[in-house]
């Protein structure tokens, strides 16, 4: 069976509607909100701040700690037990790796930068939404950065390559490949890549190209949200 039209009626390279804001959590040094379709991510950054116990400190550079957490009521089925799972630990790890290349942590020796990602509502693509929010929050915190990081999932549903799979596509009966990707938009470098599912190797190049285009669009939304916060009200 061919996948002629997306179950959600979107174009094959079209993402769900995106909304982004920064500075939403006043207590934090930097914060952001990123919504893609029904998936919502909050991110807060605290730091660079002192790191204890001191043996964890690195005199060469600051340390980045990321934590990804689904709120107990954020899953589409039963309640998610609070306290973290193997899944959330793995996502925290790959999120940190996705963000690290744009940071200049050598500027902040002996410190830690904490990134907390919280999801009040999820429907596929939550790690990518978390990464998008986190990179905006890091910028909002005023850290020295080389660029932002934009992330989106791409993949294959039956015979078609698609951008930003939602729940209906992730759970599609047939061949599905889900590939979350994070990119540094200005250098086109990839900082996160995971995949589950099956895909012929010829499609990998095409799907990376699609991810690049979608990440550039997300990047524009991220930048404009950051600029919005610092926009000076123009008096007539």
């Amino acid at each position: 069976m061919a996948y002629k039209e997306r179950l959600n009626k979107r174009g094959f390279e079209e993402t769900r509607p995106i909304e982004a804001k920064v500075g939403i959590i006043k207590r934090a040094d930097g914060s952001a909100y990123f919504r893609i379709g029904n998936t919502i991510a909050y991110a807060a950054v605290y730091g660079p701040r002192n790191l204890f116990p001191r043996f964890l400190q690195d005199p060469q550079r600051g340390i980045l700690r990321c934590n990804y957490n689904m709120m107990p009521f954020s899953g589409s089925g039963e309640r998610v037990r609070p306290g973290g799972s193997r899944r959330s630990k793995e996502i925290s790890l790959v999120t940190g790796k996705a963000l690290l290349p744009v940071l200049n942590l050598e500027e902040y020796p002996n410190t830690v930068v904490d990134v907390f990602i919280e999801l009040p509502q999820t429907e596929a693509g939550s790690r990518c939404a978390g990464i998008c929010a986190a990179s905006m929050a890091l910028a909002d915190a005023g850290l020295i950065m080389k660029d932002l990081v934009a992330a989106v999932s791409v993949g294959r549903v039956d015979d078609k390559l698609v951008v930003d799979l939602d729940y209906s596509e992730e759970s599609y009966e047939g061949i599905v490949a889900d590939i979350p990707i994070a990119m540094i938009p200005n250098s086109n470098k990839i900082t996160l890549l995971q995949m589950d599912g099956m895909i012929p190797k010829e499609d990998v190049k095409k799907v990376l190209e699609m991810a690049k285009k979608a990440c550039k669009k997300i990047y524009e939304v991220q930048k404009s949200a950051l600029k919005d916060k610092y926009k000076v009200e123009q008096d007539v």
Partner: protein
Amino acid sequence: MYSELRNHIIKLFESNVRLDGRKLTEYRKPVTVEYGVTNTAEGSARVKIGNTEVIAGVKIEINKPFPDTPAEGGLVVGAELLPLSNPDFELGPPGIEAIELARTVDRGIRESKCVDFKKLCIEEGEKAWFLIIDIVTINDAGNLSDASSLAALAALKDARFPKLEGEKLNYKEKTDKRLDIKNSPIAVTVIKIGEKFIVDPDTDEEKAIDARLMVSSIEDGTLCAMQKGGNYPLTAEDIIKMVDIGIEKGKELRKAL
């Protein structure tokens, strides 16, 4: 540790004014309640008091009733002081503060009898509806306790039962069936600093607290739960005054629902 700050706060109180210019028993403005903030929960609400923001979500499950109440459903309240919301909160299992918060919110709802747990029983001793409220903090600018209890009640009011298909619950579809909420228990935490009483402390005032009393009351002024906190004792006269303030301010806060 904060004695300078405390002295300053007490001095201001003498002229009936607070650090941010508010009167002693004045809440920050606005107090807002927004319903249905996450569609994965059966009910949810976001409460903002000034810059303080919390979200509460209700999941509705079917469980075996507790052995001591075989013909009743259940209520479980959890609270997480997320490290996202305050630089001093840490990752890990709920600490003593989060547990106290969850339990006081739980008591306010349970003891007000606003939910008839007998009506949540499906099959005696076997199956009953359980309401699981989770409170998460988004921004802690003081007074998480009042915001949390308001959010928990609002989330219950917003809740709709999931669809029961045979033995299984279909969380994808919500029914139109809502909980029958008979009254609105509102918690107001009254704070004593020096000889004065205030409500809705901000972050600085929370550092200077001598004692606090969380007062939960329903519409007619009947008390349904209380909790004394803080390191200093209170006199009976203090408590009478604090209860009065709690009930009066509760009426004001209830209007935000």
